[in-house]
């Protein structure tokens, strides 16, 4: 069977190269450094076994650090759009394909358990104002693209407020790469947001 880790490892090497070069080229915000003795920008590369998670911190002397660490890997599942600055039950966010809406979602429980039921809360916002959008229909689904199959269940949807929906009866029955989709409908217009979720098991 295909090993996504092989793909991830090759991406790891490439990303590491790019990160290293980017860090090396970063210059201090203020006065130029004097020769090789000054503390150079450095890139910390954190590569965990079998994953492509990379945490790159660039902390040139004299400038504020601009860290953009990837979200902590949660037991059982991780998704690649997690907001690292969110609260414990992180809302993931992403735009629909045409940019018409901003979708926030979170699973309960979090992280998504393997082969156990979970729910998904969804919020649909106006991307310009980040205010909830009313009068929408939302449908949550998921599939394993590499396997060419979806879930064995079609979740029930319950509107919980303006632009807010909860999908019940979700089940990721296999470990691997899932794609969670959120379809937003407003009249005759619909757009989809996609969120990759990796489930280990």
């Amino acid at each position, binding site marked *: 069977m295909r090993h996504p880790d092989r793909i991830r490892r090759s991406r790891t090497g490439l990303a590491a190269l790019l990160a290293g070069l980017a860090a090396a080229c970063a210059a201090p915000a203020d006065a130029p450094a004097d020769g090789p003795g000054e503390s*150079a920008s450095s890139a910390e590369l954190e590569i965990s076994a079998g994953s492509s998670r990379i945490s790159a911190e660039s902390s040139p002397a004299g400038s504020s650090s601009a860290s953009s660490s990837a979200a902590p890997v949660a037991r059982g599942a991780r998704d690649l759009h997690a907001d690292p600055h969110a609260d414990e039950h992180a809302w993931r966010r992403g735009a629909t394909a045409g940019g018409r809406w901003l979708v926030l979602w979170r699973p309960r429980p979090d992280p998504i358990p393997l082969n156990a039921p979970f729910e998904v809360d969804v919020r649909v916002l106006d991307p310009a104002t980040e205010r909830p959008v009313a009068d929408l229909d939302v449908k949550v689904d998921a599939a394993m693209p590499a396997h060419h199959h979806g879930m064995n*269940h079609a979740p029930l949807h319950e509107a919980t407020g303006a632009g807010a929906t909860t999908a019940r009866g979700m089940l990721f029955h296999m470990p*691997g790469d899932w794609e969670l989709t959120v379809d937003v409908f407003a009249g005759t217009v619909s757009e989809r947001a996609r969120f990759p979720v990796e489930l280990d098991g």
Partner: protein
Amino acid sequence: MKGARRKSGASGREGHARARRARLALGGALALAVVVSAAARAPQAEGEPDAASAPLPGLAVELDAKVRARIARHSPLPPLSPSPANAVADDPRAARLGRFLFFDEGLSSTGTVSCATCHDPAQGFGDGKSLAVGISRLDRHSQSLWNVAHNRWFFWDGRSDSLWSQALQPLEDAREMGSTRLAVAHRLHKDAALRAAYAALFGALPPLDDAARFPAAGRPVPGDAEHPHARAWAGMTEADRRAVDRVFANVGKALAAYQRRLTASRSPFDVFVEGLAEEDPEKLAALDPSAQRGLALFFGRANCRLCHHGPTFSDLEFHNNLVPPLAADLPLDKGRADGIERVRADAFNALSEHVDARDEAAVLRLETLKDAPESWGAFKTPSLRNVALSPPYMHQGQLATLEDVVRYYSTLEDAVVPRGHRERILVPQEFSDVEVADLVAFLESLTDEGVAPELLRAPTSPLPPPPKTTAESEAGGLAR
């Protein structure tokens, strides 16, 4: 260097340029080192060691941290969850009644077939045949009942959503036990011990002596209103039909109470997992080197765990693994696609009036079932615990031995690719002969036959033994 003085003007710009070149070189070298390091690891298959996982004494294979964590999620087998729909699921009296009924050939119309006919304890609670044979031959293989209560869906196609409702179908299937719910109720009524055992759990039986109200045989026969059983059933009052349905459901609940006790949870694999966690060489030795290599394959390159995952070594769901049918003249088997239709229509499913309490999780599963193309020809992933005890394998017993199973996945020889969906991740694994043997050794290590011996045979009575008198206790009275 730290402490070097800042230079100004042209020499300062030149110095800055030199520093920038130095940083570029340093960063490039660093990145290159990382790439080389990653490339050096590229051939590493999943499960092979990294620097963080030095081999343990007693461990014949090297397992990285991720694979060890994965293995740890497969043991121990957790206790069963309560069964809200079956109020007697964990009642020892119900388990005893259910054990008696399980071995009772009097429940069949011929008096020759019991549940144990196809689910023989001596054959891993299977029957050793490719296709089951009750009163006559069926079209599928008898599944083992080890850890059966851990399932989410029952039968190869999942057409029952509870263990108690599953037990009812063979009773009325013409090829299995050929009986009817009325006949089953009369069986309980006519035997004093059964009548008493039933009453102790569920209250008195209906007045089955009244032959006019309760014919000797009868059941609903979907699609055949003229069947004698259906005519007898239709001739009863609604209240009497519901009363008999209630008795029938209770029989299923007693059978389920017994089957819930058929657990196999402490195999050499489980001891090995403890050994990994405790770094105990003695426990690690529970698996010999061949089984350990098989374990590494199972949880690594072979990816068996994609479907056979979790403490039961089953995802409890359905897949089409393309295995060819046993014979060309067998009926086309739609598998799960058929099962979905049947479980929705089952009068004893999670939505029925015969549940003792509503099981919200089961109701949600039932209500959200999806008619998907991938259900066509899909069958339930069997648990691998005690798998070595119940050959042959697959839904029609197509593969005689575990070695045949592993070789099938190695080559996918004769695999039947459906016109619709196929499991895209299923590709030939191309195992060597040694790897085949290792995987078989690992599967055999999932065997635990440590269940209480009395569960493997019929009790002398469906009623619990009377409490011992003081004299009997002091004398060390006869065992049950």
